[in-house]
């Protein structure tokens, strides 16, 4: 997806500097595979955590949003796109067929939202 005005940042895990990136944007979508939850994906708002936790191996999107607000006075609105995956314990270089289908569905859902910056419209169907 090369959509004007959209920054894509691929990372292994969330970290504190993600908060600085969040602060430079109006809307932030945390997209990742989910080990459980609805198929093909869930899409829901991510609110800043009031009393977050932090470790360098584990930081939740809510904590990133909280840090962005507290440290950088960020007003960004956050959302999560949790795409259901399945074969997390298998060693392999490709996604399972079902996960690939879910990914395609997630992309189909998110692309127009990003294209039109339509996060505030009532037409968004929150799956969760």
């Amino acid at each position, binding site marked *: 997806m090369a959509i004007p005005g959209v920054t894509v940042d691929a990372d*292994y895990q969330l970290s504190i500097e993600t908060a600085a990136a969040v602060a430079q944007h109006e809307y932030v979508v945390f997209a990742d595979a989910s080990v459980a939850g609805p198929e093909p994906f869930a899409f829901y708002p991510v609110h800043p955590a009031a*009393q977050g936790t932090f470790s360098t191996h584990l930081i939740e999107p809510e904590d990133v949003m909280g840090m962005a607000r507290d440290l950088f006075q960020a007003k960004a609105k956050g959302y999560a796109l949790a795409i259901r995956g399945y074969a997390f314990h298998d060693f392999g270089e490709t996604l399972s067929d079902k996960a690939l289908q879910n990914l395609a569905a997630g992309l189909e859902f998110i692309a127009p939202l990003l294209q039109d910056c339509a996060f505030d419209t009532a037409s968004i169907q929150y799956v969760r």
Partner: protein
Amino acid sequence: MAIAAPAPRKIIIEPVTRVEGHGKVTILLDEKKQVQQARLHIVEFRGFERFIQGRPFWEVPVLVQRLCGICPVSHHLAAVKAMDRIVGGENLTPTAEKMRRLMHYGQMLQSHALHFFHLVSPDLLFGFDADPTIRNVIGVAKRFPDLAVQGVMLRKYGQEIIKATAGKKIHGTGAIPGGINKNLSIAERDGFLKDIEQMLTWSHGALKIARDYTLEHVKDLAGFGTFDSNHVSLIRADGAMDLYHGNLRAIDPRGKSIFDQVDYQRYFDYVAEEVKPWSYMKFPFIKSLGPEQGWYRVGPLARVNACDFIDTKEAEAARQEFVKLLGGKPVNVSMAYHWARMVELVHSAEKIRDLLHDPDLQGTDLLVTGVRRREAVGLIEAPRGTLFHHYEVNEHDQVVRCNLIVSTTNNNTPMNRAVEDVARNFLSGTEITEGLLNRIEVAIRAYDPCLSCATHAMGQMALIVEVVDCDGRLLDRKARGGGADAE
């Protein structure tokens, strides 16, 4: 009929918060309820050395980064240094070596900044006994927002350096056997130069906090996880600190040489590893001294202790003050790791600045090859200490043997000693107080351990404390943080 001696009473702390990975602490009491021994258990499974077998050698510098999301660059560079030798390309071009050094100092900067500002500063700023709900990075962000922002921005700067040199912030592909696959563009260089003086200023601010804290509390810290040890690090031929390349030096607790300028290709003639049944993490030691006397510290404290000087002006001034004010080297105070780490933070920022002014970074001669080898060792001074990667490759280019001694593993015995020292001084009776809990965490955290790295798996962070009597009965249990609360 022989009467069996009573089993030691056990106090278990599991796992440890604000360190990387999953460990637990058991304090063993004797029949007089005195601390007999303390053990830092690593309970995750170690298996990476097996996973790597059968993979083509050129994949290894990328694959091994999956060991850890915290210091992938160190694994990337240690592995590629070994693979340089496998392809006979260890004499890198100036551009390749300087790009790798830039990558490494970027990693050092971001890792040290992250550890200090976001994991350690709560202990130093609020005190060991502060409420854990405040004594964390969120508390720092609320009370000292400027400091928290500096930590974020230093980390971000280091990560951007990594991205520019390795191709990606995490799990990059920049270093390849025999060289590097890109140089630094003028635009990238100028972008970094714009902010480097600010990074240096903030690094000095952090150095001052660590220095002032240590000096202010020097008497207390001398009785907190302080014990004599040997120290091991890489060293340049002229005795300067060199975090990327050099030979091995080991000194004893008085600073006397144990070995010096040892080619690390023969590390196994000097260092061995002991296995203990209660931990997945091995216990390295200097062979000539044996396991009882030969264990050693690595990391910032060992590096500052072992080197003769630092080759950047401001870090060298800080090193001299460190050595002088703590009564001459070697310094054996565990909490002095923080001060030493911040000396290295300044050194890394200076090195980045100097490298950015070096036109070799825009060179185009990136790769060399030579006569193939079947076995090689790569060593680097990772943020947490000396990192060993040792590989054997067969005629089909597949890895057939791999041995890794990661930084935290090198510090295994010192961390156990630190916990034991704290337990002896702060355990009263058999009750685990908040004060004891806090101090055990603080002592372990001084080493900036990555328990995930040391066992090559990822863990969860929380704190569970259990008191178990000699019959195995649970007498007390405390839970704190993360998943531990969700019993």
